[in-house]
């Protein structure tokens, strides 16, 4: 066992501060796992970042907007979108219960719904609340199958008894609950029929609305079982399949363990037995020998990199000017990861895909922005290592840092260094 407490904190959360790392080292690996999974007391940090109240979607009750009305509504939606991105980045940064917060980001990538198609920030925020308030995966799947953002994202509102659309059914099986190879095309079609009859209404972000007349109430044969499946009984049924627990275990390993080495069978079995509570599965993962071996590297996703740096440099998105927020979001766009806007229903990219040459340029620019906000009067390479929770700089980076002429340059180079990008 390698038992690297630093690695544990970097994987479980967004990037430990120097004091968090020092405390964890003192407490030891086991105690740190326990503390991450069951933090004492309420999350005081998160309490300082209350979820925004957006009010109604401006397009609600505008069935036939004039050009001016449309422009005004689009502009308000843009403001709301900025508001929820700012809020979530801030919440990730200030939350003390980092394992919960990171797991929330994992689930967002899992259900991978994008505002670019959904359009309504209210819908996106309502989905976020559902994921956050779900005690386990079964409940989450139940809440999301009738979630307007997900339904609209996957054309569920077009799925009726007379004109079935299998988009949602397919992704439910393939990307969200079972994984490819664990169902047939016929299962997708039948599941599509089970999901008929749901429509979305911009005025009701909490839930899609069920229209019994559009629902196909006949019997469906899914994975060998015949019943009058509807949306809820379908996801309950899918969540009970052994493939579902195994699939979620593999997805957790992919983001927390390694995106290049497949999950070991023994690890998968252990995680599967902790299904359906996400945090319980994570605890098993962090206690697993393959995870603890420290042999597997992960590329930080852009949001992990950004939020980790903001935590360590004590920067809060809540205090950003509008201009700074736009620079940060445009930087994240350039890096390919904006919260609430995954590029694909298949979720975020991983590994070397984050390390392309254009990202190198964008990252340096974003690092410069952060370094400007951090404002150090004096900083050495050694102090920077402590702040960024880097064990030791490689020779390469140390030599490079030595060439920096001021703290700002030093910070930019440290944040852009290969050892800070990969953990």
């Amino acid at each position, binding site marked *: 066992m390698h038992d690297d407490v630093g690695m544990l904190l970097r994987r479980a959360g967004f990037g430990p501060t120097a004091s968090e790392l020092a405390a964890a080292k003192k407490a030891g690996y086991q105690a740190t796992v326990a503390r991450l999974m069951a933090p004492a007391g309420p999350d005081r940090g998160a309490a300082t970042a209350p979820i925004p109240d957006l009010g109604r979607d401006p397009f609600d009750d505008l069935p036939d907007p004039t050009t001016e009305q449309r422009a005004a509504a689009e502009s308000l939606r843009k403001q709301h979108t900025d508001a929820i991105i700012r809020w979530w980045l801030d919440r990730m940064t200030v939350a003390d219960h980092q394992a919960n917060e990171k797991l929330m980001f994992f689930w967002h990538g899992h259900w991978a719904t994008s505002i670019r198609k959904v359009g309504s920030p209210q819908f996106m925020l309502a989905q976020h609340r559902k994921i956050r308030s779900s005690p386990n995966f079964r409940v989450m799947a139940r809440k999301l199958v009738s979630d307007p953002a997900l339904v609209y994202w996957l054309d569920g509102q077009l799925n009726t008894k007379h004109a079935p659309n299998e988009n949602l059914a397919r992704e439910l099986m393939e990307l969200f609950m079972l994984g490819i190879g664990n169902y047939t095309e016929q299962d997708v079609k039948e599941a599509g029929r089970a999901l008929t009859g749901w429509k979305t209404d911009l005025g009701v972000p909490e839930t899609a609305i069920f229209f019994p007349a559009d629902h196909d109430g006949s019997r469906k044969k899914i994975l060998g079982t015949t019943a009058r499946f509807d949306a809820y009984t379908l996801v309950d049924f899918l969540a009970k399949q052994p493939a579902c627990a195994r699939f979620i275990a593999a997805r957790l390993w992919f983001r927390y363990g390694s995106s290049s080495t497949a999950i070991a069978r023994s690890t998968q079995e252990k995680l599967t037995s902790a299904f359906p509570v996400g945090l319980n599965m994570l605890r098993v993962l962090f206690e697993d020998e393959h995870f603890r071996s420290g042999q597997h590297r992960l590329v930080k996703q852009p949001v992990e990199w950004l939020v980790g740096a903001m935590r360590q440099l004590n920067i809060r998105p809540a205090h950003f000017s509008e201009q700074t927020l736009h620079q940060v979001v445009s930087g994240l*766009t350039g890096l390919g990861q904006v919260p609430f806007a995954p590029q694909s229903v298949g979720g975020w990219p991983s590994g070397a895909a984050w390390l392309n040459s254009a990202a190198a340029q964008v990252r340096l620019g974003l690092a410069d922005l952060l370094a400007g906000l951090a404002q150090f009067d004096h900083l050495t390479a050694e102090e920077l290592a402590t702040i960024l929770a880097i064990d030791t700089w490689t*020779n390469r980076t140390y030599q*490079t840092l030595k060439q920096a002429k001021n703290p700002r340059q030093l910070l930019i180079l440290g944040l852009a260094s290969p050892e800070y990008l990969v953990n």
Partner: protein
Amino acid sequence: MDPLTRRKFLLASATAGGAAAIAASGFGLAELLATARGDDGSDADDGTDKLVLVTLYGGNDGLNTVIPYADPAYHSARPELAYAPEKVLHLDDSLGLNPVLTGLKRRWDDRQLAVVLGVGYPKPDRSHFRSMDIWQTGSPEAPVPTGWVGRWLDGTNATAEAAVSFEPVLPPLLVGATRVGACVAVGGLQLPPGINADLVAALGRTQDGESELHLRAAESYQDFLRVNELVEQAANSPAPPEVAELPPLPATATGGASSLAAQLALVSRCVEAGVPTRVYSVSLGGFDTHANERVGQEWLLKQLDEALTAFLDRMAKTKAGRRVTVAVYSEFGRRVRANASDGTDHGTAGPLLVMGPGIAGGFYGEQPSLTDLDDGDLKATTDFRDVFGTLLGSVLRADPAQYLNGYQAKLLPFVRGRV
């Protein structure tokens, strides 16, 4: 450039420090260009064919691009949106180009424009993102994490500059399992104050005993510098005499999304300078014409036509340029019937345009029926992987099946033998 020069170039660019090393060992592009120009006064032709992929984001309305003007069903399905037969640029007695595509019509008359009809894939997906993923990954059955050009980079152990995108974000198309294409901001090398190329190069040095991913992170800085250096030199290199009258690069310091013309101007410079890139990815967005389609689509198609025409005219003047093939595609066409807001909703199959001196102009495949529809949408008659497979085989000289996840492409005869 001759093979020896190219090998020296690769050696130079493979050393730590990338751009700095190229400059230090005297193999900047200006020098390469000088060696590449032979006695016949020809240009930087390195003997390889190049592919330029133009992606139209948003779902271009194929039926108002290559118009079935003689089909009464076309006019009855979209009375407000249909073009009168006399306005259409006739290609034959049933199909014609959108009136704004005058440059492409000229290309057609020169027999250098191939129009592949009814291109799509089985079980069409109407989500922009998913459908674009399908086109770029070449995998309609299941999402895969790599693009078909990315897999070609993997398979040929190519360096990052073998496939270059001038788009703001690297498209999935260029992402392989172990290799990633290069992504170049049209604005060129922009570094924070105080951070110079030497510092970035220092960060890009690799370190013994580093993990594969750390190595990749370091290399991304080398790639970044190297590709920017190549593009910068290409942009500043003196144009060959015969193209000297062409307009210079437009100002590019404003940032943000750039025009297709600006992206293609950079491609021109790179091709003429002999940059060892085989695949260029450029794009034009905004084709999601759910409402007031006619004005919007014409505006976009005009940009497309002007940018492609200027690019191809310029490419025709150099030997390296004559090795360029351009393919234009979109993630899906649009529905046959117009909607209630003078637009069209997401559809399925559409025409794919392939052009260049090496292309045997004409129609390929079959125009889908406007009356035998699949739930209001066209039925695809050609799988897009047959087109990409043909390009893989004829332009990149690669085995299509290897990079299309085993798909056995039916090769289309639209590529002629080269001169």
